[in-house]
């Protein structure tokens, strides 16, 4: 696929990352657009990459099993593939209703 070739060539792609509730507070911002390496395959890979970015991320994802993720507004498990997701969200377990 030409798309895959283009990505492999650049090695990174821009993704909008949004944070909510105490994940947002710990990261220190509600959203950011980051160029993420195209070799990050899964949500868990992205979390590991984010944790290396600094203390706030480290604190937000200190218990990886607790933080939830969504790819383009759809819940995603840690092993879910990032695919072409353009908006990736991280947040605590939900407490609505």
């Amino acid at each position, binding site marked *: 696929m030409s798309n895959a070739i283009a990505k492999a060539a650049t090695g990174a792609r821009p993704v909008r990352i949004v944070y*909510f509730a105490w994940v947002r507070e710990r990261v220190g911002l509600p959203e950011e657009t980051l160029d993420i390496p195209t070799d990050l395959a899964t949500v868990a890979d992205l979390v590991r990459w984010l944790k290396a970015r600094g203390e706030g991320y480290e604190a937000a994802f200190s218990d990886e099993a607790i933080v939830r993720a969504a790819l383009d507004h759809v819940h995603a498990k840690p092993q879910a593939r990032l695919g072409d997701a353009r908006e990736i969200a991280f947040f605590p377990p939900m407490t609505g209703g």
Partner: protein
Amino acid sequence: MISPLVRIQRGDFSLQDEIDALPAGRADIGAVVSFIGLCRDEAGTLAALELEHYPGMAEAEIARVAAEAVERWPLMGLVAIHRYGLVRPGDQIVLVLAASAHRRAAFEAADFMMDYLKTRAPFWKREHRADGTLGGWVEAKADDDDAAKRWDLAP
């Protein structure tokens, strides 16, 4: 199949208005079950709850849960409204309304909607205390996950 009505809004809602908006003149509705969730303050220390939500995904996720309910039960009406922003003790937070020919379907669909709203809709509650301080984020309950798991079984 019907189209569920899903609304995410800051302002209050009226159960009666939603019931009145159910398809009139259809005499096949025999049962209407509604659920209203309210802001509680057991301890008397709460000034308000702040409801943060994920715009876009909140609507999409509740719509997916509602579509699943419409698939599982023969419904003639399904409404889900969830507020965000600041709500005071006694205020309404969430409404679910399910209409069907028979009561079993209406009860189960409303119950199912609430279990999934609780565990899947991207909303987070934080306490504002009566003494002016900001309280913590409300923690999710294992109970709620267990409740949602009931529905994985074929009905």
